[in-house]
């Protein structure tokens, strides 16, 4: 049995070794198969190195990220506001629950054609699709967070005649923040999916469109490079969000004894 200190170094090292081995197998297998559908790892890396720094590619990414940010902001505003309402008020919860459940079941791709008809082919319809899809995890987590607030806290607030707005902003919101952040974290990853989905039709720009373009051009290494970029982007966004979350929730972790 290894000690935990040895484990702490050996564990991640083993992970990296296996990862490198998998890449090596890919390289050898693709080289041996010599199929143009499966480029070798080195070919993809080379193409990624060529493609990623180009202004063409970066402007597609920029277009996508702009809509991602806008959709995320709208979803956060609506999701948190509705979540606070649904979480705090029993009447609102009963009234809105079936309606929200029905809306929630609608897949984002199904919204795309309708959004294009109503909002046109440009940014607005895509942002709407992203915001629609991201709204629900934030809403549900916010409502859950508010519902988890101890009854004594709510009762104390109502006994002290704390007003509705102040109660929502100074008691419910901070108390539900850990749960809200969990919802936002789901939205960070889901947002990338929705960005791509929203770009499958409509105007010709964005990273999702780039993938389709490369598919139709039979530029396989570039297609792989684009997918790789999305994976890395998802990873980085997630990490960044975790950093923010630890900052924002520092008080919570301290209180939880961590």
């Amino acid at each position: 049995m290894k000690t935990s200190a040895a484990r702490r170094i050996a564990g991640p090292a083993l992970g990296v070794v296996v990862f490198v081995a998998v890449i090596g197998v890919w390289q050898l297998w693709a080289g041996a198969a010599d199929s143009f559908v499966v480029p070798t790892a080195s070919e993809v890396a080379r193409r990624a190195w060529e493609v990623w720094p180009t202004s063409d590619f970066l402007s597609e990414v920029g277009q996508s990220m702009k809509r991602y940010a806008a959709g995320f902001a709208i979803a956060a505003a609506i999701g948190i506001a509705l979540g606070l309402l649904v979480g705090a008020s029993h009447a609102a919860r009963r009234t809105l629950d079936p309606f929200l459940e029905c809306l929630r079941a609608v897949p984002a791709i199904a919204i795309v054609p309708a959004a294009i008809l109503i909002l046109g082919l440009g940014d607005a319809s895509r942002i709407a699709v992203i915001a629609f899809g991201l709204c629900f995890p934030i809403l549900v987590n916010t409502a859950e967070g508010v519902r988890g607030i101890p009854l004594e806290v709510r009762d104390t607030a109502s006994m002290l005649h704390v007003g509705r707005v102040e109660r929502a902003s100074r008691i419910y919101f901070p108390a539900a923040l850990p749960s809200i952040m969990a919802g936002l974290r789901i939205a960070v990853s889901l947002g990338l999916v929705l960005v791509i989905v929203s770009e499958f039709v409509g105007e010709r720009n964005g990273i999702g469109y780039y993938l389709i373009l490369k598919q139709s051009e039979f530029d396989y290494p570039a297609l792989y490079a684009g997918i790789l970029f999305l994976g890395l982007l998802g990873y980085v966004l997630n990490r960044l969000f975790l950093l923010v979350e630890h900052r924002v929730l520092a008080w919570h972790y301290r209180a939880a004894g961590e």
Partner: protein
Amino acid sequence: MPSLAARSDREGRSLLSRPQKATDAMLTSAHLYPAEGRAIVRTMKRVNVPGWLFVVTVTLLVETGVRAFDYEQKIATPSSTLRALYGALADGTLSGEIGFTLHAYLEGLALAILIGVTAGLLIGSSRTLLDASSVVIEFLRPIPAVALIPLAILFFGPFGIAAHRFVVVFAAVWPILINTIYGVRGGDRMLQDVARTAGVGRVGRLFHVTLPAALPSIATGIRVSATIALVVCVTAEFRTGAGGIGNYMEDQQFANKLPELYGAILLVSLLALAFNAGLRIVQRRTLFWSGEERSAR
């Protein structure tokens, strides 16, 4: 949850800190309801009259609003949507598409369960395997499944079911895998020790101790995956020309047949609701012994 994340971060374990265990909160607002009742009377009481009245009111408002402002070129009225959906279902236009979608969806989901649970059990019960697989999993998991659709088309061609199945498997496998790992690692160590002391072998422990303990967590992972997989499946069909409800939707969009398009949207949503409800019932019936269900008594 946050405390777990913080703790695992301190240990420098990244695999378990970031991939979140799927929870019901990600899926339904099941927690908004009171604990599961026993009698039909309670079910009847739980029918949410104001909630459904609200749904009906909104529907009627949309109907009259669209008619009044002559917006029917952009938004199909609920009545014409229902009529179009009923028509397409009745004359069989949609049955082939539904069959196509369900075929790719169910096969993909089944494969994902097989892969996710098997790999999750192995990885979860061995620290070495967990370490070994962590970087590969972290690398693959953030790749959005929908980004693989163009790749899948290249690999399997645009007109088969294989491309859809591949994308569905990729999308559905992660929640199941992560939840299985969580379920296995969250199991009671005491039970393992008792079983070992009693002379139960490795395989016996896996099937009689580890797997049952992880089942509730696995079930939740499967339900999350089932929803994601259906969405991804329809999205893939949107891009390919093989068939399926997504393909039908794209056709209606190009033909500018709004009621048919909205009808298909409604159909997909109903399917998603039905699958989720069905899986919930299965989970409740088969996992009645698990902590959550027991504490409800």
